[in-house]
């Protein structure tokens, strides 16, 4: 077996490691930087940014399950303008590249957010979150329909002055087709994949504990589901595949790289280990014998 190199170069950027910190689990990187936890991080992906500020969903926004975590944050963020003027300048000194996660309620909103944020030179690219509901066209997630994914990708590529990945959804639709559509629309990577729909019901009341009923489920137990999807998608597209989901140790990262991922995101594990990036990289180096 050949041991994979652990540095990366694509999108015209060099990454010290294949580990990316997943959207929504590391803010804009500032807090983890202050904690000294960005060592070993190839890149940070910001929390979702929308055009207008969003205060987010009513609590409880998190629910721990026996083997994972349900989240219903509701894309809480201060809006693209505020991010441009107040947050990005404050994170211009991060020790690793920053990618901005973009969400929207219409195809146009994704392009609008990118148009606002491109005034900043702080971030290297975008991750387009097509798992959110397409409110303008019926409310189903953009990502379930390859034709809509194509339109989002095309709209973003018309305004983006730097690379972007389209983060796909596992909740309905054919992810391989969606990935191909994203690439055809101009995406320079695809992220596989966003959270899995989940729900926990209090049997005494018969009601979902999370007010918005369904939520996003993440868990180390999702590893094989993500490995399968990364493997399928990477066989179908030529752009880099970024995996997201299921990672809790260095071996998981190596497995996802073997499945075809170029970069591997870690999310929920950061709740236990804010310095997970460095820990994962050390574990990988030990396993592969790389110094």
């Amino acid at each position, binding site marked *: 077996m050949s041991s994979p190199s652990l540095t990366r170069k694509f999108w015209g950027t060099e990454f010290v490691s294949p580990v990316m910190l997943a959207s*929504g*689990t*590391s*803010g804009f990187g500032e*807090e*983890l930087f*202050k*904690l000294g936890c960005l060592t070993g991080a190839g890149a940070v992906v910001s*929390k979702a940014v929308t055009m207008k500020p969003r*205060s*987010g969903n*009513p*609590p*409880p*926004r*998190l*629910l*721990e399950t*026996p*083997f*994972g*975590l349900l*989240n219903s*944050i509701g894309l*809480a963020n201060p809006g693209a303008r505020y991010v441009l003027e107040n947050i990005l300048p404050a994170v211009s000194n991060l020790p690793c590249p920053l990618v901005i996660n973009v969400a929207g309620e219409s195809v146009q909103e994704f392009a609008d957010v990118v148009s606002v944020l491109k005034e900043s030179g702080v971030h290297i690219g975008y991750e387009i979150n097509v798992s959110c509901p397409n409110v303008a066209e019926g409310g189903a997630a953009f990502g379930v329909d390859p034709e809509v994914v194509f339109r989002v990708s095309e709209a973003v590529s018309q305004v983006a002055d730097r690379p972007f990945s389209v983060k796909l959804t596992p909740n309905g639709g054919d992810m391989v087709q969606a990935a191909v559509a994203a690439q055809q629309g101009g995406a320079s990577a695809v992220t596989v994949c966003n959270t899995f729909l989940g729900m926990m019901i209090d049997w005494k009341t018969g009601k979902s*504990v999370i007010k918005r009923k369904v939520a996003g489920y993440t*868990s*180390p137990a999702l590893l094989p589901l993500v490995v399968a999807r990364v493997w399928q998608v990477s066989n179908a597209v030529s752009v880099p595949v970024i995996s997201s989901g299921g990672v*809790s*140790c260095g071996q998981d990262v190596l497995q996802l790289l073997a499945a075809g991922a170029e970069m591997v995101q870690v999310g*929920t*594990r*950061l*709740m*236990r280990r*804010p*310095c997970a990036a460095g820990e994962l990289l050390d574990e990988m180096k030990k396993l592969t014998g790389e110094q």
Partner: protein
Amino acid sequence: MQTAGDYVCTVLSSRQVLPGVFSVEFESPEISSVALPGQFVQVEPSPGVFPVTRRPVTINRLTESGFELLFDVVGRGTQLMARFLPGDMVRVMGPLGKGWDVDQDKTWLLIGGGLGAAGFQFLVDSVRSSGVIIGASGADRVIPVQAQTVHIVTEDGSRGSRGLVTALISEELLARADSIAVCGPVAMMEAVWNTIPEAHRSKVQVSTESRMGCGWGVCDGCSIPVSGGGYRKCCVEGPVFPGDTIDWKRWKEAGL
């Protein structure tokens, strides 16, 4: 400003202080030298991967070489924590959050309901207090707090007077205090807030709890509804807030 860190701390002692309520002392000069009353730590309940989040617990008291936590066993995480033994190495991140606003030289009245009083000792040890009111369901739930004047009230009358904490809140106690610390279940804190007359409300600070993902401000999972709309993050903007910050109605609806 003090800075938090993630440390592997040695358990110095662990004992049951009340049925199901444990006191665990950790060695950590790093955390105790910068901790302020009302701040909390994030404890890894197990060495493995599950549960996937840590458990937030308020620092109850500083000790010679570290700090003490007092916690109630309510579920899987705290069950694991109750099994900590002296000598165990446990990962603890802290100190976290914004504690009691103790800037000024003020006299404090402390009002705690149930486990809400876990954390009071640190405040009592740091400020001048005119009194501590502790309410509990029964004698076996009264959190021990060492202070000059402690008023105890239990719902079943098994210790102190019978009733709820609100019954002990008097104009005289409120008038003597410059600051009022309230901590307990949401319904208790709301009842206390409603009992305190308008004139004294600006003195009130409340210590809140919320389900946390990280505890260090990155996940937006711990948001608490505030008056006038919107949310504040319990973990970094709190857990202690001025009493008038909280939107009690929306907070109760969360059903936490």
